[in-house]
């Protein structure tokens, strides 16, 4: 019996990516919810370098960093493939995955800042969203359902995490609306497609709880700065 455990946190976009990948592939796993203000000794042992979730533990061996975990899952359980097989198409997928990774910290800085500093990160985030809208989701009239075409892939999971948090946390808690429909029609269509995938739909964190938790976090952050 394969032993798969996920050390994660239901409000972490990075953790959700792994949950989605495991469920899309139908891999049974044990979810270990970590309290990020009081990380378990086991987590610190499994991820001594970054001390972060998510960590996937497969037959006792830990894998860290959400997108690296996703590539591991893809290689270990090839059913319901989440990456193309063609090497060049994989290059394109990995390029946009990296872009999503780079976008994350910029977007999150809007959560951590206010005023003029926040404006700077808002501007940078908008530019990145524009790039995705114009260059990743189809060129010209050719519309794509997902980043890789008709099937959901790791690229969707990479962006999906940030997109959902953008809508739930950045918009509702921080009060900054980046994804205006008329400015980003492709992104809007893509988010709808993404959330309609049954596994995704059934594995999104509870909105009210998340808003409450992040509201508290933001208040604490701004009070201490």
């Amino acid at each position, binding site marked *: 019996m394969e032993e798969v455990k996920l050390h994660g946190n239901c409000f972490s976009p990075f953790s959700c990516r792994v949950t989605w990948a495991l469920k899309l592939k139908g891999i049974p796993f044990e979810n270990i919810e970590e309290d990020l203000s009081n990380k378990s000794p086991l987590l610190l042992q499994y991820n001594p370098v970054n001390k972060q979730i998510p960590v996937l533990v497969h037959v006792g061996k830990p*894998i860290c960093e959400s997108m690296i*975990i996703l590539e*591991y899952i893809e290689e*270990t359980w090839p059913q319901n493939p989440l990456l193309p097989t063609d090497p060049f198409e*994989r290059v394109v997928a990995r*390029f946009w995955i*990296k*872009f999503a990774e780079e976008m994350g910290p910029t977007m999150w800085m809007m959560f951590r800042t206010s005023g003029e500093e926040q404006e700077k990160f808002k501007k940078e985030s908008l530019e990145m969203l524009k790039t995705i809208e114009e*260059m990743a989701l189809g060129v010209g009239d050719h519309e794509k359902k997902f980043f890789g075409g008709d099937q959901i892939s790791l690229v969707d999971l990479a962006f999906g995490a940030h997109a959902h948090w953008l809508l739930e946390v950045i918009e509702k808690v921080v009060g900054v609306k980046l994804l205006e429909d008329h400015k980003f029609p492709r992104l809007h269509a893509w988010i709808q497609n993404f959330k309609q995938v049954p596994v995704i739909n059934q594995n999104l964190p509870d909105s009210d709880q998340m808003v409450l938790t992040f509201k508290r976090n933001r208040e604490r952050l701004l009070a201490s700065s």
Partner: protein
Amino acid sequence: MAEELVLLDFWPSMFGIRVRIALAEKGLKYEYREEDLTNKSPLLLQMNPVHKKIPVLVHNGKPVCESAIIVEYIDEVWHDKSPLLPSDPYQRSQARFWVDFIDKKLYDTGRRTWSTTGEEQEKAKKEFIEILKLLEEQLGDKPFFGGESLGNVDVSLIGFSCWFYSYETLGNFSIGAECPKIIGWVERCSNKESVSKTLPDSKKVFGFVQELRKKFGLE
């Protein structure tokens, strides 16, 4: 169809170096095109419109961007010679983790050892050594991160070695004194033709860094 490989690069870039070494490890012939980063070629802007950065590997007219992605692509397409990534998924995940670690931490910290002063510089030097020490731990007793031969971690890290002289001279510290294992590893890598024929001369890199410092008003 004959394979056409063009590499858009910039000679001191540690990210470009890793692609050059990967290509050399696989024995691949390619056209090297030096980019003037103050006046980027139309081809570069066309092949990497999102970031407009080197290195870009153009394979039969199609662009591959981001050095770590290029190395994996080279390894996948030319998989029958000198494998750079392990075949076991777990070992691959570990190799990817360390390349990601190098990319996220070493470049910025290294840069700060020569582009900052005072307390900031001291902090950068300390962090830089800590990062190398973590990598030393990872290397352990193996000759290379890839085991008996160069792996993608070796290929990704060795490009920084020609910058060590610059970091040490401008930061006034010795990498070898704190991280002798890394220096030993650098020497072993340098015995490989793919590395020795690729790595630019450290003093030449130093000259380039001096020019950069002048440009930023640091001299």
